[in-house]
């Protein structure tokens, strides 16, 4: 007995009635809470309950999709019929198929923290209030708190298909984030920090607030750097911003559609300094760890780049059939309304051996980039080019000379990977983005274009 057996029953019955033999249904039922505090009172309090089901139906060699937020039998039947009919619009292709039942045992995971689920709402409000207060008190130069938020969410995902796949899991996650504004005369700078966890007690509002405040205050008096080519220290946050856009080059679908520069490069050295990139859906305590992917294919740990050599792309069932390989368990849907695509899970650059301070001392002058903004505008995963607004610090012999902002850093992602001069030992992950979560240590890159004055 799994939750929503009647709904799945109705969907598969409807499919039988119209002669749809290959059907996959993906249901999500989620609830979330968001509390925003302003001036020690709550500014907003959001309670979301959403659920829906999406189907993928194979008809004459091609897939059609439909979804419904109504679980009434007529709505479910209409949904199956729509998907069955609109499948015929696409050209048939023998690679279109649903995964067979994977005989690998489903990994046992505990992704639902009972204590978080039972934490009373008053404690959550108190935490968010504490976050705001701590940020304002962290430094006399902190003028305002732009936002202080606590949120959590829980959900059930169930995937079933006509090949006998039927899997479900529950998960929950909480986060706290604070953004502070530091002000000195007319100079205003912002800084933020956050925590993501399944364990409510791990959220330390004072620590998050201090970090956010320090980031804002440290940027006061920022100058615009002189334009030129510099060695660049990419901090975890900056590198993760780039990974979140450029991980698209590893998608087998993008490779097959002529949208990735990694086409034809399996087995080749992409990065001569020997960087290793891993995607691990089984990562213990990973924020997007899951037992199976959006098609119900069992999760695994995958090395995409092993010591700089391209080992594998990310695959779902269709892309894998095109390449004559097995799915790597990276099918993803942007929710029950989306189509089955490919996305990374816990995707990260493996730590190196040096401490970040030693990496910074290894060059006489460098620009340490703390944050990149506007990546959706300035990055092109197809060409690999990026040109992004940045902020950070000028370093001289590993010491901070002064803060920098309103400059851009430009380059090409693959060329940059190939000019990584050092990888530090401080791997860290940031908050999840959809069903993906990115991590990186600090990196030293030999020469990137900086545009300022």
């Amino acid at each position: 007995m799994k939750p929503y057996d009647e709904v799945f029953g109705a969907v598969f019955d409807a499919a039988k009635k119209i002669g749809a033999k290959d059907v996959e249904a993906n249901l999500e039922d989620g609830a979330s809470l968001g509390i925003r505090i302003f001036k020690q009172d709550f500014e907003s309090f959001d309670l979301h309950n959403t659920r829906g089901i999406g189907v993928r139906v194979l008809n004459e060699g091609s897939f059609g999709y439909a979804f419904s937020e109504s679980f009434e039998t007529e709505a479910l039947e209409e949904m199956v019929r729509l998907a069955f009919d609109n499948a015929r619009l696409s050209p048939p292709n023998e690679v279109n198929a649903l995964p067979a039942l994977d005989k690998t045992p489903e990994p046992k995971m505990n992704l639902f923290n009972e204590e978080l689920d039972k934490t009373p709402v008053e404690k959550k409000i108190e935490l968010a209030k504490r976050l705001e207060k701590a940020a304002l008190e962290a430094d006399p130069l902190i003028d305002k708190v732009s936002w202080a938020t606590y949120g959590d969410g829980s959900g059930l995902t169930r995937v079933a298909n006509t090949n006998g796949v039927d899997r479900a899991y529950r998960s929950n996650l909480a986060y706290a984030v604070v953004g502070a504004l530091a002000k000195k005369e007319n100079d205003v700078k912002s800084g933020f920090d956050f925590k993501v966890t399944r364990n409510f007690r791990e959220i330390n509002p004072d620590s998050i607030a201090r970090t956010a405040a320090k980031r804002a205050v440290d940027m006061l008096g920022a100058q615009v750097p002189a334009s030129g080519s510099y060695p660049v220290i990419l901090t975890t946050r900056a590198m993760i911003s780039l990974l979140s856009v450029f991980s698209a080059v590893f998608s087998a679908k993008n490779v097959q559609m002529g949208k990735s520069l990694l086409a034809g490069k399996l087995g080749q050295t992409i990065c001569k300094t020997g960087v290793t990139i891993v995607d691990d859906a089984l990562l213990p305590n990973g924020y997007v760890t899951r037992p199976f992917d959006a098609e119900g294919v069992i999760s695994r740990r995958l090395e995409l780049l092993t010591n700089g050599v391209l080992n594998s792309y990310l695959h779902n069932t269709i892309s894998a059939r095109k390449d004559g390989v097995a799915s790597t368990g990276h099918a993803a849907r942007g929710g029950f309304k989306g189509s089955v695509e490919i996305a990374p899970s816990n995707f990260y650059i493996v730590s190196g051996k040096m401490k970040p301070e030693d990496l910074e001392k290894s060059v006489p002058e460098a620009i340490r980039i703390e944050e990149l903004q506007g990546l959706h505008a300035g990055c092109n995963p197809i060409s690999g080019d990026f040109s992004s607004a940045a902020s950070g610090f000028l370093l001289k012999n590993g010491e901070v000379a002064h803060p920098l902002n309103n400059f851009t850093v430009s380059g090409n992602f693959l060329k940059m990977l190939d000019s990584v001069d050092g990888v530090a030992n401080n791997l860290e992950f940031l908050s999840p983005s959809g069903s993906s979560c990115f991590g990186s240590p600090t990196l030293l890159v030999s020469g990137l274009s900086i545009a300022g004055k």
Partner: protein
Amino acid sequence: MVDLEILKKALDAALSNGASFAEIFVEDKVINSLTYLDGGLEKSICGRDHGAGIRLFYGNRCIFACTNDTSENGLVKTALTAAKAYRESRGDVNINLVETKLNSPHKILIPVTAVCLKDKMDLLRRADKKAREYDPIITQVEAGYHDSVQNILIANSEGLVVRDTRTRTRLGVAAIATFRGEKQTGSERHGALKGFELYEKNVPERLAEEAAREAVVMSKAEYAPSGEMPCIIENAFGGVIFHEACGHSLETTSVAKGTSVFANKMGEKIASDCVTAIDDGTTPNEWGSTATDDEGAPTQKTVLIEDGILKSFMVDKLGGLKLGLPSTGSGRRESYHFAPTSRMRNTYIAPGKATLEKMLEGIELGLYAKKMGGGSVNPGTGDFNFGVSEGYLIEKGKITRPVRGAALVGSGQEVLLRIEMVGNNLAFATGMCGSISGSVPTNVGQPAIKISKITVGGRK
């Protein structure tokens, strides 16, 4: 969608703990989305959203809850859960719901529900063919069609009841050119609050040609220069500059918290004298227009800046309450999943008199940004960034070679004061804008503008 008696019961439940205001936003939306890739229809998704968002105010505190269950039981239960988040003592309120009839200026000639999927797919087939024929170096084309019919019903404790139906459709084409082992992209899209009549007059072919042209030009472009220089930003999507550099900072979303750089600047000069900027939700059938906003207030034409002076913010109900300002009909939300907040609609810089020739005069080295990509802003500091998707060098007063990979960065307050000239060729472009109330359709627009100095992030 939902009977008035049920709405009243749910509103009463929402007010049961002393809330000062309650609102229910019911939504039923049918969408069709088709994607063409690799020369054939890659996917087609149809679906239906259905649910309600219930919002309450306790003073300036906003409680929001949403549910898919719009039965009497479902709505009352959700309203009570939301109401329990706080408590105030307040006398009984008698809600008298009276429906306001909307006179929408947005006429639909060919409903999208009357057009079969095959005809919609044909637009993509035509676009794909045209883009591939444009040049042999075009190696991939991706085209997307999307339409939606959104029915909404808003009722609130002030007795307001209003319904609206929004039909929207859009078509986008992206082309990839592969040249000497490198790939470059070009894209173009068009959308409106219209029916299928939007696609008359060879729209698919025109979008495809433009996307392919941009990809080809950029694949043969060198890298953009770096440093501060004068910049001419062409019309239409160039308006994203104003949207990011100024627009978001004028929404009461951040102004009401004092976290916008323009929060205390009403009546002051925040832009050059030649800049007049408007946010208009009333223009018939434009992508960012609606007949009523998502809180039931009539949309308006709001003059934000006049001859450089800040004249108005974009105000939603809650923002207006906090600042003591009337709503400008700017309350918007992506769906019933979100509480509304002040957002942009069709935002543009009004046309001036300058010509391109006049703007080019005197520029030794500069950038001509023919087409902009997207961008973002930090409203608290005013720092913004944009991508230039098609750029050219300006050398000694002439537009010369194409350049690629440039980003423009700077401070919103500074760039507004550095707009030296405003051109005469106003045009609009469609986009999706993201913020705390979700992703909403917005237009940006402007004529060509000349900025005296801006930081260009290139590679040389």
